[in-house]
């Protein structure tokens, strides 16, 4: 058995960008490889040029600067889970990272790879969306700074152009916010999400002063659910409020995704998922 492909391992970012520029659409990026290897096994990507970016030091950035978290696209989920900084400033993203694949996969799979693969069920994406994450795309010709939502063009289709490399993300710090990530799947480990939900909320005596909710797997690409956020903003939510918020979430999901075979189940499941995820915010005994 032979694999008709060519392997390149540029030593730094500048060389990687030059190579991507020269290869154009023939280049296939190898970061963690956990999705790519499965596709190659299926016979895809024959004749392509594999560009191994897994060792580029520039893609391992992790810092807090001026209230923003800068996160290298090449960080593995194990590296994300091990970061005290991210536990404080990106709680929903860290919870999502803990539920991705298995330990063997988290040890090599990268945040950037999870995003650019553009799977509707990518676990890390809702966690990025609730922090208004922006993606920094570098190419030989320059740099683009775009909201992550704009990269998600469609299922398995990203808006990243040939010659561009997603090098890092910039996130608004969620320091002091309550965060959660919940997913529904057929088993608890190594599971593809059937629905997932990331929530960030700031709550005080006046109720929720900031609330951000993103849904994964329910729509062609993960997305923020602004209608649900508006419904909950300013409320000190009761359980009844959460069920109503879940109803808003489900109806928006159906509006975006249309009626599908799974809709009967997913409508109720989305509602339940929101209630389950946000229940810790309901004050008991009031």
């Amino acid at each position, binding site marked *: *058995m032979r694999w008709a492909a060519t392997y390149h391992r540029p030593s730094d970012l500048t060389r990687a960008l030059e190579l991507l520029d020269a290869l154009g659409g*023939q280049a296939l990026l190898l970061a963690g490889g956990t999705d790519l290897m499965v596709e190659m096994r299926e016979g895809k990507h024959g004749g392509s040029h594999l560009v191994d970016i897994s060792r580029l030091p520039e893609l391992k950035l992790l810092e807090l600067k001026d209230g923003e978290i800068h996160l290298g696209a090449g960080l593995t989920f194990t590296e994300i889970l091990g970061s005290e900084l991210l536990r404080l400033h990106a709680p929903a993203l860290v919870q999502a990272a803990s539920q991705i694949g298995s*330990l063997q*996969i988290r040890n090599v799979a990268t945040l950037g790879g999870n995003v650019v693969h553009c799977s509707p069920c990518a676990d890390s994406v809702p966690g990025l969306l609730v922090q208004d994450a922006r993606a920094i795309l570098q190419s030989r010709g320059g740099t683009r700074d775009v909201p992550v939502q704009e990269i998600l063009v469609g299922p398995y289709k990203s808006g990243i152009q040939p010659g561009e490399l997603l090098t890092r993300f910039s996130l608004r710090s969620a320091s002091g916010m309550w965060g959660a990530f919940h997913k529904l799947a057929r088993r608890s480990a190594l599971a593809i999400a059937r629905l997932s939900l990331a929530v960030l909320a700031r709550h005080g005596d006046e109720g929720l002063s900031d609330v951000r909710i993103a849904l994964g797997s329910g729509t062609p690409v993960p997305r923020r659910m602004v209608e649900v956020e508006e419904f909950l903003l300013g409320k000190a939510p009761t359980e009844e409020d959460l069920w109503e918020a879940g109803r808003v979430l489900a109806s928006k999901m159906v509006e975006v995704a249309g009626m599908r075979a799974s809709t009967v189940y997913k409508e109720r499941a989305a509602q339940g998922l929101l209630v389950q995820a946000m229940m810790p915010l309901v004050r008991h005994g009031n």
Partner: protein
Amino acid sequence: MNMHCQEPGPCGPIPVRFRLNGREVSLQVDAGQSVLHLLREKLGLKGAKEGCGIGECGACTVVVDGVAVNGCLMMAAQLDGREVLTVEGLESPVGLHPLQEAFLEHHAVQCGFCTPGMLMSAYALLARNPQPTRDQIVEALAGNLCRCTGYEQVLKAVEAAARRLASRSGT
């Protein structure tokens, strides 16, 4: 560091050098070839198994630079400069590794297909966390499927090995 194929264009096999079970290995691999294929078909190390081939079963687990990875999902070319441990490297001249002994004593093996992967996941766990809780063991082994044992004996074996390693190191 080896820098194969800086320029676009056709390239032949890729030279790689790495340490495998303590020995320096230098050979040529194909682009896209998996670590698992290299180990089994080129190097004759049949311990790591191909169960699913898509990263779900963990039967191909090996330890690379101290962490457990799926051999089926990593490219052989990526091993360049790395330290690789497979189940064949667990045994020492004085005998089986305490994990292997504990698996035998606790009947953590039935058909044995998943065992090399289980051992390597457990090895990586104990190297990082010598005294794990049961929950931590479960989490570390969640990527390793076993259709025979029901897992209970495996968990007991890992706990026993941790105790044995602790007593040997005098802690």
